């Protein structure tokens, strides 16, 4: 009973409720929704689709969670997605052997290293030069799509390379490869942040950079690392997205993915003010967003109207999580309204 009470009181409660409600609504609408069948040795079904479509967003959102935990934000991930896809596809398209495994691995390597460098550039601007994260990453967000256009020459670069296709739409042991990649990286990050001191150090930098520096935490290195990681993850997401359609679209690849990722993080209960973060919350947030997108399609509403539903869910979840409403809902013993104010002054 106490466990249930803790769960109801936790920030993850409302997002989980939103996810359950969406899944229930879909199941009522079409009972086939929850079916998962095996066909040609591959798993198929709406739930699998949600997981696979979530993969790029999950990667970006995990990087974003860490960045937001250090009280930062990364607006450039969408541009990095475009650049990474553009580099990989251009390399494969211009190589002598587009179908070769070595070519694909080289392309993936180049794209990954480049996105790591772009992320590190953001980290440099934020941690060394000391520019506010939102504007430091806005630079790359604005210029990045231009750079991606430069790489592809303004064209949509299409390629034909079966090994590259595996990243986005292949299967391994009946599970989509994209889900395995993002799930694996999610698990690694979760392990590193929750089973080592790294997570606590990141949170301490987010809560009070000054104090954590004085306490001997290498704030600068940590900030640099999280931005580099966010860049790398965005790059991998870019590979998935371009591999899914076998083309690099500098204009539209990863468009607004930074906003979706930030939404997922916030729905998951991580505050944009930095500090405590929840990777599980982010996972739920990503699933809510993707399920919502699929629900809209299933309900037969034009997909273009999806933003409207997103807005409704975001506003609802944020209002339910807001201090005013939480104070109303919570028992009188707790005084939640005081807590955030104190934290703000302390910071």
């Amino acid at each position, binding site marked *: 009973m106490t466990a249930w009470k803790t769960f109801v009181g936790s920030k993850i409660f409302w997002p989980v409720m939103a996810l359950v409600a969406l899944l229930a609504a879909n199941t009522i609408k079409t009972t086939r929704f929850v079916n998962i069948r095996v066909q040609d040795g591959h798993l198929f079904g709406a739930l699998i689709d949600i997981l696979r479509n979530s993969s790029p967003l999950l990667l970006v959102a995990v990087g974003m969670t860490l960045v937001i935990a250090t009280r930062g934000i990364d607006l450039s991930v969408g541009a990095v997605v475009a650049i990474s896809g553009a580099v990989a596809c251009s390399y494969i398209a211009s190589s002598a052997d587009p179908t070769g495994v070595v070519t694909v691995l080289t392309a993936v390597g180049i794209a990954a290293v480049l996105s790591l460098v772009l992320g590190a550039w953001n980290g440099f601007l934020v941690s060394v030069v000391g*520019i506010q994260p939102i504007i430091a990453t806005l630079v790359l967000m604005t210029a990045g799509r*231009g*750079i991606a256009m430069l790489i592809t020459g*303004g064209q949509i670069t299409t390629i034909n390379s079966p090994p590259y296709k595996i990243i986005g739409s292949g299967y391994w042991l009946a599970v989509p490869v994209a889900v395995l990649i993002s799930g694996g990286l999610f698990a690694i990050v979760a392990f590193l942040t929750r089973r080592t001191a790294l997570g606590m150090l990141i949170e301490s930098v987010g809560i009070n950079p000054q104090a954590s520096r004085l306490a001997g935490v290498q704030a600068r290195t940590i900030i640099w690392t999280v931005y580099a990681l966010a860049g790398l993850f965005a790059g991998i997401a870019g590979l998935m997205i371009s591999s899914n359609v076998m083309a690099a679209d500098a204009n539209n690849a990863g468009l607004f993915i930074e906003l979706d990722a930030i939404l997922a993080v916030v729905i998951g209960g991580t505050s944009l003010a930095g500090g405590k973060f929840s990777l599980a919350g982010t996972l739920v947030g990503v699933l809510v967003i993707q399920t919502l997108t699929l629900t809209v399609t299933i309900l037969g509403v034009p997909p273009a109207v999806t*933003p*409207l539903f997103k807005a409704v869910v975001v506003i609802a979840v944020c209002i339910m999580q807001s201090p005013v409403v939480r104070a109303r809902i919570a028992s009188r013993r707790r005084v939640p309204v005081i807590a955030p104010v104190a934290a703000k002054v302390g910071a």
Partner: protein
Amino acid sequence: MTAPDVLPTADATRAATDGSPRARLTRAARSVHVDRRFLPVLGALVVLLLMFAVGGARYENFLSGRVVSNLFINNSYLIVLAVGMTFVIVTGGIDLSVGAVVALSGITAASLFQSGWPAFVVIPLVILIGSALGLVVGVMVHVFEIQPFIATLAAMFLARGLCYVISLSSIPITDPTIVWLSSTQIPIGDTWTITPSGIIALAVVAAAFYVLHYTRFGRTVYAIGGSEASAVLMGLPVARTKVLVYVISGTCAGIGGFLFTVFSRSGYSLTGVGMELDAIAAVVIGGTLLTGGSGFVLGSVLGVLVLGLIQTIITFQGTLSSWWTKIFIGVLLLVFVVLQRAIAARRR
């Protein structure tokens, strides 16, 4: 052409009293005791003049009244957006919804005109749509303590979604008032012209300049940006002001949407994608700090003109692809924030 003349000269005289060619700017500023707050704005002005000089040297007919007039006319909606954004950013907030609000007010106007509504009803209505969304954002930010970034992001999705509900396709506008507004050119002198949109934009700039710099409300906006806790302790009307800045930004977005509708003579759900980032970039280039508490309306206007001039130069050059615009804006943004950072570091 009185009003547009006032803009550059006000800053030009300020620059002139420094006796400042570009290289000696900081040294001169220190010796003449120019307020450090003005340095980023001066930086924007210097860049603008430099770009005019480079353009004038490279291309024929670049330094003509027509180019400058077009700069104002083609960017009138962005000027209005940037001015509204300045209020929000000075309080330390941000408004990501303006691009979507531009699209929403445009498509609403177009579809209302299509069903035969008169202009004198439609125009105030579409501006009020912006104000109403701004009010919603303000309440979300203040009452529910949702971070401005997320609240305005939600408003952006809301407005964008509503656009698609109204119409998925572009709607042309044939209303005589809009046609008159978009085709009228008022000549000033030989080569200068101004359009009604330009006049509206300049009126908004003048009003915003007065409100932000010469009223009690304006001082409260700065006080909140400096330190919200202190502003509350000083007894300033923080709640009302915080909500109002979002209403102002929303209203400006509504006006901007109306101007953009006049400019394009149609309404389309996909207009204004990324326009909020242009507005934010203009505000930052104009010397407003994103942390709040410091910034100027005229700086933001200069920022818009700098962005517009990049576009003009690339058009004049003719050989550069359009994506160079984005790269240039990114580089310029970087230069400016590093510059601001250097100034802020020296102040400490």
